Structures are given as structure tokens and as C-alpha cells.
């Protein structure tokens, strides 16, 4: 039984090792300063590089982070801090709020694993068709939709790890709620950024800070 389990681990590690070895062995000789900086060459001839592609990737990453991270962090703060707020004397509002936050959390989790090609269709039919051509901004909006649920979820889980005593202490010092959250958000953004940058390539999680599949496990306390 032990052997069988070890064999399972080996079966999973073999592809990983093979991918790393093949990519490094076949890819490394092609890398050179010219290749990394020059634009694409003439089709059918030798030469050319991936300078444009790298530039495009960086612009796309920057733009989509600009849209996705603030929205995601704010949404995460709502789910963690305001989702269970009790409006004293307004039981109706309290009910609405708790229904809203639990259903938004649910939808957020659903969207975390959504097929990226469907998001692509959404961006195409709304933005590309409206603007009349393919564009970086269309790509950035699509990517920010893909990263939004991941950022939201990571933010929420991280803020929830902040001990209640710190929240109480901040309130006792008279610190306003928004500043209090803002401070923790600053730490969080650093944490979640790892996840977000990696999600461009993998539309999955980055450094294992949070499993995007319901088993969140954080290693760093944000405060």
C-alpha cells in the first residue's frame, strides 16, 4: 500500500520533471539577447525574436492588474469585513446583506474555475465587436475577469486570518474602519499579487498561497 502511494507520487512527478528538462534543454540554447529584444523576423527566414511578445505580455499584465487587483481587493474586503455586518435596528437590511454576501461568495467560487475560453467569447462579443478591432484593452479586460475571483478569494481568506483582537484594538484606538481595512489591504495586495501574476499564465494559482479549489491554506499572516 505504501509502495502504491509512492508510485502515485512518482507518476505525477515524472511529467513535471520531463517538462522542466525538455523546456530547459531545448529552450536554453535559443535564448540570446537579440532573441529577447528584437521583433518578429520575416516569415520563412531565420532570425527574429520575441521582443514584441514580451512587451505585449508586460503591458497586458500591467493593465489587467490595474483593473483586476483593486476591484478584487475591494470585493474581498466586502466579503470579509462587511458581509456579516449587523445593521442594528434594521433586521431587513441585515438579512439582505447576509444573503448578498453569501451568494456573492458562492458565485465568486463558481467563477474561479470557469473555462477561460468562455471569458474570451464574452470579451470578444462585448469589447472587440464594439470597438471594431482586436485590442490590448480587450485582452486586459478578459484577463482581469479571469483574475478577479482569484484575487477576491485570496483577499477574503487573508483578511479573515487577521485576529479579531487586532480589529478590536484598532476600533478602540478610534481608527476608522476604512483605514483599518486599508492597512491590511496593503499587506494583502503584496500577497495576492504573486497569485495574480502567475494566473496570467496558468489561470490558476500562483505560489500556493491559496488553493483555488476550496482548501485555502495561508502561510503568511497579513498583519
Amino acid at each position, binding site marked *: 500500500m505504501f509502495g502504491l502511494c509512492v508510485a502515485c507520487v512518482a507518476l505525477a512527478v515524472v511529467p513535471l520533471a520531463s517538462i522542466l528538462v525538455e523546456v530547459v534543454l531545448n529552450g536554453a540554447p535559443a535564448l540570446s539577447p537579440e532573441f529577447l529584444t528584437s521583433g518578429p523576423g520575416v516569415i520563412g527566414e531565420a532570425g527574429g525574436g520575441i521582443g514584441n511578445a514580451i512587451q505585449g505580455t508586460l503591458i497586458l499584465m500591467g493593465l489587467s492588474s490595474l483593473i483586476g487587483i*483593486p476591484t478584487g481587493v*475591494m470585493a474581498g474586503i466586502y466579503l470579509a469585513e462587511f458581509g456579516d455586518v449587523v445593521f442594528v435596528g434594521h433586521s431587513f437590511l441585515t438579512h439582505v446583506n447576509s444573503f448578498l454576501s453569501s451568494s456573492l461568495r458562492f458565485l465568486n467560487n*463558481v467563477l474561479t474555475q470557469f473555462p477561460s475560453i468562455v471569458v474570451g467569447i464574452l470579451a470578444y462579443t462585448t469589447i472587440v465587436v464594439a470597438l471594431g478591432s482586436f485590442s490590448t484593452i480587450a485582452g486586459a479586460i478578459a484577463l482581469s475577469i479571469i483574475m478577479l475571483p482569484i484575487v477576491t478569494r485570496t483577499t477574503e481568506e487573508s483578511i479573515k486570518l487577521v485576529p479579531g483582537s487586532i480589529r478590536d484594538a484598532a476600533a478602540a484606538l478610534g481608527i476608522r474602519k476604512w483605514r483599518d481595512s486599508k492597512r491590511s489591504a496593503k499587506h494583502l495586495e503584496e500577497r495576492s499579487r504573486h497569485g495574480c501574476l502567475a494566473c496570467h499564465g496558468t489561470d490558476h494559482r500562483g505560489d500556493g498561497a491559496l488553493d483555488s479549489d476550496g482548501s485555502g491554506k495561508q502561510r503568511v499572516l497579513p498583519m
Partner: protein
Amino acid sequence: MQSLQAKEQQVRQGSNSLLDSLGGFLDAAFQVLSTYSATIVAGVLVLMTVVLVAGSSPVFRRFGFIGFITGVNWNPVIGKEAFGALPYILGTLVTSAIAITIGVPISLGIAIFLSEMSPWAVRGPVSQLIELLAAVPSVIYGLWGLFVFRFWVRDWIETPLSTYVGSLPVFSGSPFGLDVLTAGLILAIMIIPTVSSVSREVMLAVPNSQREAAYSLGATRWEAVRIGVLNYSRSGIFGATILGLGRAVGETMAVTMVIGNAIGPAAIPTSLLKASQTLASLIANEFNEADPTSLHPAALIGLGLILFIFALLINVLAQLLVWKVLKVKRGSVE
């Protein structure tokens, strides 16, 4: 005395009233802003539904919903249009089924190893290695599948299969390496990190009393895992499997590069050693070249709508299952 108190109160009110009202406003504004940000997710899902339904309506009007999902022909040429999604629905289901059949047992083995058997020192590094599989971009899986894995599958699996059991319809066809089996196996590798990490968490949440009870009844190590752990965490493992299924169904690039990209009736996955096509891979292959004035984009958006429905059902089911388990987990901790 009294005047001092009154003065103190006055100073306090005077110096803070402006800041206080501003702060109160900022508090409220912050809460409203964050609530709006959170509702964007719901907005995206609603917008997605509207866009997919509206975008695909021309093709449904022409062929009917049933006609579209049961049709097998695919011809975008204007005047000879025929759009049927059945081969690609089947292709998606078959490749995902292979991925689940192969990937889930391996993931469970890994999860059992990590939660029950491994020495403490190995636990961290091994689980990080497995999670590294999730960090590999899917297009890299596709490239690796095209240049490396394809030949492994062809030489070590498909050639023996074709030689010894090639007479069975499921294994008919010549081993080529770019087919349903390779796509399914690549997907199996890709779902391993998801399924194994969720199952591991679920198994770690099993209270120790379960294992102790099994041991005290004279169970061996394997029996303790089977009776105490696997039984207890069944619904969580099922949820993990469904999450893996969700990833397999929507996967695009890796599948597109290894499945062989057949079109029309030829894409019906009757044999494992046959080129086929999934919903996602067909959209990826043809969306860029589709003529906006024809029915072609509408048909591809129709495929997207079917994929959307699949993904929605799978993810909702998985969330419900995983939530249930996490609630149990929380209950056991408190």
C-alpha cells in the same frame, strides 16, 4: 470643576466634529464601494449569460436547439451551412472521463501518501512539487504533449494496445499519438494538483479518533485508511473529483494541441486511438477565422453556451459539496 468638564467636552467635540463627520462619510463610502466591487462578479455571470444566449440565437433559430446539439455535420461555408455540436460534446465528455478515471486514483494515492503515510520531513517538499504541476501554463503542457508525451503514448501504450486488442472497436485505428487518449492523459496530469490538494485537505480534516477507532478494532494500516479516513471523507473526495472535472471540461490550449482536431462526423470519439475535438478546442481553432457576416461565429458561441452550462453545473455542484465538507471541518475544529 464643572466648567473644566464642560470645556473638555467642548474641546473634544470641537476638534473632532469635522473629522468625525468626514470619517463617517468615508466609512460609508468605503462600505458602498466595496459592496459594488463584490457585485461585479454577479454582473459578469449575468452578462456572460446574456451575451452567450444573444450571440448564439441565430444558429438556434436556424437549426433549433435540439437540432444543434444532436447534429453531427460542421460546415461553415456560406450556402452550405451545417452546424451540429454532438461530436464535440461527446469529445469533451470522453476526454474528461479519461482524465477522471486515470487522474483521480493517482491523486487519491498522493493524498493518502501526504496525509497518512509520509514522514513529516517529506510532506512539505512533495506537496510543493505536486502543486508545481498547477503552476505550469497549459500551453506548455500542450507543447510538451506535442513534442514529447505524444511519442510516449504512441510507443508505450497505443502500439501495444493496437497490436494485442486492436480488434476491439474502442482500440481500433492506427497508433498516431494525436488522439483522444493522449488528450485524456494530458488532462489527467493537469487535474492531479487540484484533486490531490483538495482530497488531502479533506483527509487531514478527519478527526484522529476515526483512525484510532479503526486501529483499536485491529485494522491494518490500509484498513484504517479505508474505514476510518476514506469513508469519512467520501463526499469531500467526490467534491474534489467534480472540481477536477470542471478543470478538464474547460481546458483549451493543451487539448487543442494534442487531440488531432477532427471536424464533423469524423470527430465522434468512437475509438481511443482516433483524432477528435472538444467544445473548447473547436472554439479556439476556428473563432479567429470565423467570418463575422456568416452563421459561423454564432455556432461557435453556441458551443460556448453549452460549455458555459456544463461549467456552471459542475462548479455549482462542486462548491456545494466542498462547502458541506468545509462546514463539517469547521464544526470538528470548534
